[in-house]
Protein backbone atom coordinates (compact mmCIF):
# COMPACT_ATOMS: atom_id res chain seq x y z
CA UNK A 1 0.00 0.00 0.00
CA UNK A 2 1.33 3.42 -0.96
CA UNK A 3 1.24 6.11 1.73
CA UNK A 4 -0.70 9.24 0.74
CA UNK A 5 1.62 11.98 -0.49
CA UNK A 6 2.16 14.76 2.05
CA UNK A 7 1.60 18.29 0.72
CA UNK A 8 4.78 20.32 0.45
CA UNK A 9 5.22 22.84 3.25
CA UNK A 10 6.78 26.27 3.06
CA UNK A 11 9.60 25.03 5.28
CA UNK A 12 10.48 22.44 2.60
CA UNK A 13 11.05 24.99 -0.15
CA UNK A 14 11.97 28.31 1.50
CA UNK A 15 15.41 29.91 1.29
CA UNK A 16 17.65 29.70 4.35
CA UNK A 17 19.49 31.27 6.03
CA UNK A 18 17.74 34.58 6.21
CA UNK A 19 19.78 37.77 6.39
CA UNK A 20 18.09 40.60 8.27
CA UNK A 21 18.85 44.31 8.63
CA UNK A 22 17.86 46.96 11.17
CA UNK A 23 15.70 50.03 10.41
CA UNK A 24 18.69 52.32 11.00
CA UNK A 25 20.94 50.52 8.52
CA UNK A 26 21.55 52.49 5.34
CA UNK A 27 20.80 51.85 1.68
CA UNK A 28 24.52 51.40 1.03
CA UNK A 29 25.01 48.89 3.85
CA UNK A 30 22.01 46.86 2.64
CA UNK A 31 23.44 46.94 -0.89
CA UNK A 32 26.76 45.62 0.43
CA UNK A 33 24.97 42.79 2.23
CA UNK A 34 22.96 41.93 -0.89
CA UNK A 35 26.14 41.86 -3.00
CA UNK A 36 27.90 39.54 -0.57
CA UNK A 37 24.99 37.14 -0.05
CA UNK A 38 23.41 37.25 -3.49
CA UNK A 39 19.93 37.87 -2.08
CA UNK A 40 17.57 40.51 -3.44
CA UNK A 41 15.32 40.96 -0.41
CA UNK A 42 16.05 41.22 3.30
CA UNK A 43 13.56 41.43 6.17
CA UNK A 44 13.90 44.41 8.51
CA UNK A 45 13.85 43.45 12.17
CA UNK A 46 13.71 45.38 15.43
CA UNK A 47 17.26 45.27 16.87
CA UNK A 48 17.50 43.16 20.00
CA UNK A 49 13.90 41.96 19.64
CA UNK A 50 13.90 40.32 16.24
CA UNK A 51 10.29 41.14 15.39
CA UNK A 52 9.87 41.67 11.66
CA UNK A 53 8.98 45.27 10.84
CA UNK A 54 9.13 45.17 7.06
CA UNK A 55 11.19 44.18 4.05
CA UNK A 56 13.67 45.86 1.70
CA UNK A 57 14.35 44.71 -1.84
CA UNK A 58 17.05 45.62 -4.33
CA UNK A 59 14.28 47.24 -6.36
CA UNK A 60 13.38 49.47 -3.39
CA UNK A 61 16.97 50.75 -3.31
CA UNK A 62 16.86 51.54 -7.02
CA UNK A 63 13.40 53.05 -7.20
CA UNK A 64 13.08 54.72 -3.79
CA UNK A 65 16.66 55.88 -3.20
CA UNK A 66 18.76 56.00 -6.38
CA UNK A 67 16.02 57.06 -8.81
CA UNK A 68 14.78 59.76 -6.43
CA UNK A 69 18.27 61.12 -5.97
CA UNK A 70 18.40 60.39 -2.26
CA UNK A 71 21.70 59.84 -0.46
CA UNK A 72 23.02 56.28 -0.21
CA UNK A 73 23.13 56.98 3.53
CA UNK A 74 19.33 57.07 3.62
CA UNK A 75 18.11 54.90 6.50
CA UNK A 76 16.17 51.74 5.78
CA UNK A 77 13.13 52.91 7.73
CA UNK A 78 12.72 55.73 5.21
CA UNK A 79 12.19 53.45 2.21
CA UNK A 80 11.35 49.97 3.49
CA UNK A 81 8.01 48.38 2.84
CA UNK A 82 6.34 48.16 6.22
CA UNK A 83 4.29 45.22 7.44
CA UNK A 84 5.81 42.66 5.10
CA UNK A 85 3.41 39.85 4.28
CA UNK A 86 4.36 36.62 5.97
CA UNK A 87 3.58 32.96 6.30
CA UNK A 88 4.72 30.12 8.55
CA UNK A 89 7.00 27.16 7.88
CA UNK A 90 4.14 24.73 8.41
CA UNK A 91 1.85 26.39 5.87
CA UNK A 92 1.32 24.48 2.63
CA UNK A 93 2.93 25.94 -0.45
CA UNK A 94 -0.56 26.10 -1.95
CA UNK A 95 -1.56 28.54 0.80
CA UNK A 96 1.61 30.58 0.28
CA UNK A 97 1.08 30.64 -3.50
CA UNK A 98 -2.54 31.70 -3.04
CA UNK A 99 -1.45 34.56 -0.78
CA UNK A 100 1.19 35.69 -3.28
CA UNK A 101 -1.39 35.49 -6.07
CA UNK A 102 -4.02 37.45 -4.15
CA UNK A 103 -1.60 40.15 -2.95
CA UNK A 104 0.35 40.25 -6.25
CA UNK A 105 3.73 39.80 -4.54
CA UNK A 106 6.81 37.76 -5.38
CA UNK A 107 7.90 36.74 -1.89
CA UNK A 108 6.76 36.19 1.67
CA UNK A 109 8.77 36.39 4.86
CA UNK A 110 8.56 33.08 6.73
CA UNK A 111 8.21 33.69 10.46
CA UNK A 112 8.48 31.37 13.45
CA UNK A 113 6.26 31.28 16.53
CA UNK A 114 8.04 34.36 17.95
CA UNK A 115 7.33 36.29 14.73
CA UNK A 116 11.03 36.27 13.94
CA UNK A 117 12.33 35.63 10.42
CA UNK A 118 13.00 31.97 9.67
CA UNK A 119 13.40 32.32 5.90
CA UNK A 120 11.97 33.79 2.73
CA UNK A 121 9.81 31.95 0.24
CA UNK A 122 9.88 33.41 -3.25
CA UNK A 123 8.14 32.85 -6.55
CA UNK A 124 11.28 31.00 -7.71
CA UNK A 125 11.13 28.65 -4.68
CA UNK A 126 7.45 27.89 -5.37
CA UNK A 127 8.07 27.36 -9.09
CA UNK A 128 10.95 24.95 -8.44
CA UNK A 129 8.72 22.85 -6.21
CA UNK A 130 5.57 23.15 -8.31
CA UNK A 131 5.54 24.80 -11.73
CA UNK A 132 1.73 24.82 -11.63
CA UNK A 133 1.62 26.84 -8.41
CA UNK A 134 4.35 29.12 -9.78
CA UNK A 135 2.07 29.74 -12.74
CA UNK A 136 -0.76 30.63 -10.36
CA UNK A 137 1.41 33.26 -8.67
CA UNK A 138 2.51 34.65 -12.02
CA UNK A 139 -1.10 34.90 -13.12
CA UNK A 140 -1.77 37.04 -10.04
CA UNK A 141 1.25 39.23 -10.73
CA UNK A 142 0.19 39.80 -14.31
CA UNK A 143 -3.42 40.67 -13.69
CA UNK A 144 -4.32 44.37 -13.75
CA UNK A 145 -3.96 46.06 -10.38
CA UNK A 146 -7.05 47.34 -8.59
CA UNK A 147 -7.06 51.14 -8.61
CA UNK A 148 -6.89 51.50 -4.83
CA UNK A 149 -4.49 48.61 -4.19
CA UNK A 150 -1.09 49.31 -2.64
CA UNK A 151 1.90 48.00 -4.61
CA UNK A 152 2.77 44.45 -3.57
CA UNK A 153 -0.22 44.45 -1.20
CA UNK A 154 1.64 46.43 1.43
CA UNK A 155 1.80 49.96 2.69
CA UNK A 156 4.82 52.06 1.82
CA UNK A 157 6.73 54.08 4.37
CA UNK A 158 7.62 57.38 2.71
CA UNK A 159 10.47 59.63 3.73
Amino acid at each position, binding site marked *: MVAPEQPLRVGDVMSRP*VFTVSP*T*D*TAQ*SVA*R*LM*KETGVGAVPVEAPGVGTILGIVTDRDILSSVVARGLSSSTAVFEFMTVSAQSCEEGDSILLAAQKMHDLRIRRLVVVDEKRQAAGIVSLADITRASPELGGLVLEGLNRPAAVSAQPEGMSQCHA
Partner: protein
Amino acid sequence: MSCLTQDRLWSEAVILEAPKRVLRVQSTRDACLCLKNHWPLADGPAKRSALAACDRVIDGQDEPDAARTAFIKAAEEAKFHVHSWTGE
Protein backbone atom coordinates in the same frame (compact mmCIF):
# COMPACT_ATOMS: atom_id res chain seq x y z
CA MET B 1 34.47 35.97 8.42
CA SER B 2 31.72 35.08 10.82
CA CYS B 3 28.20 34.27 9.87
CA LEU B 4 26.45 37.03 7.93
CA THR B 5 23.17 36.28 9.66
CA GLN B 6 24.54 38.03 12.76
CA ASP B 7 25.25 41.71 13.23
CA ARG B 8 26.09 44.02 16.13
CA LEU B 9 25.34 47.71 15.85
CA TRP B 10 27.76 50.45 16.88
CA SER B 11 26.97 53.33 19.19
CA GLU B 12 27.95 55.86 16.49
CA ALA B 13 28.44 55.68 12.75
CA VAL B 14 31.85 56.10 11.13
CA ILE B 15 32.02 58.04 7.87
CA LEU B 16 34.98 57.48 5.57
CA GLU B 17 35.77 59.90 2.78
CA ALA B 18 38.03 59.39 -0.19
CA PRO B 19 37.98 61.13 -3.58
CA LYS B 20 34.59 60.31 -5.16
CA ARG B 21 33.63 57.94 -2.35
CA VAL B 22 31.82 58.17 0.98
CA LEU B 23 31.34 55.06 3.09
CA ARG B 24 29.01 55.25 6.06
CA VAL B 25 29.43 52.31 8.42
CA GLN B 26 27.56 51.73 11.66
CA SER B 27 27.66 48.01 12.31
CA THR B 28 30.19 45.24 12.70
CA ARG B 29 28.93 43.11 9.81
CA ASP B 30 28.99 46.09 7.46
CA ALA B 31 32.52 46.99 8.56
CA CYS B 32 33.57 43.44 7.77
CA LEU B 33 32.01 43.65 4.29
CA CYS B 34 33.69 47.01 3.61
CA LEU B 35 37.08 45.65 4.65
CA LYS B 36 36.63 42.49 2.61
CA ASN B 37 35.04 43.82 -0.60
CA HIS B 38 35.35 47.60 -0.81
CA TRP B 39 38.74 48.44 0.62
CA PRO B 40 41.54 50.22 -1.25
CA LEU B 41 44.30 48.22 0.48
CA ALA B 42 44.62 44.51 -0.27
CA ASP B 43 46.38 43.92 3.03
CA GLY B 44 47.79 45.70 6.04
CA PRO B 45 48.30 45.12 9.76
CA ALA B 46 45.43 47.39 10.82
CA LYS B 47 43.12 45.83 8.24
CA ARG B 48 43.94 42.31 9.49
CA SER B 49 43.46 43.44 13.06
CA ALA B 50 40.10 45.03 12.23
CA LEU B 51 38.84 41.90 10.46
CA ALA B 52 39.84 39.81 13.47
CA ALA B 53 38.11 42.28 15.81
CA CYS B 54 34.92 42.10 13.71
CA ASP B 55 34.97 38.29 13.94
CA ARG B 56 35.42 38.42 17.72
CA VAL B 57 32.56 40.89 18.12
CA ILE B 58 30.17 38.92 15.92
CA ASP B 59 31.07 35.78 17.87
CA GLY B 60 30.13 37.62 21.06
CA GLN B 61 33.65 37.62 22.48
CA ASP B 62 34.04 41.39 22.46
CA GLU B 63 31.97 44.58 22.53
CA PRO B 64 30.87 46.24 19.26
CA ASP B 65 32.92 49.36 19.89
CA ALA B 66 36.10 47.24 19.84
CA ALA B 67 35.37 46.54 16.17
CA ARG B 68 34.58 50.21 15.62
CA THR B 69 37.90 51.34 17.09
CA ALA B 70 39.84 48.78 15.04
CA PHE B 71 37.90 49.80 11.92
CA ILE B 72 38.85 53.45 12.38
CA LYS B 73 42.54 52.45 12.62
CA ALA B 74 42.22 50.40 9.42
CA ALA B 75 40.56 53.37 7.70
CA GLU B 76 43.44 55.62 8.70
CA GLU B 77 45.88 53.01 7.39
CA ALA B 78 43.98 53.08 4.08
CA LYS B 79 44.25 56.91 3.99
CA PHE B 80 40.54 57.54 4.31
CA HIS B 81 39.48 60.81 5.84
CA VAL B 82 37.64 59.60 8.95
CA HIS B 83 34.67 61.39 10.50
CA SER B 84 33.42 59.99 13.76
CA TRP B 85 31.90 61.42 16.89
CA THR B 86 34.19 59.55 19.25
CA GLY B 87 37.10 58.62 17.00
CA GLU B 88 40.53 60.09 17.44
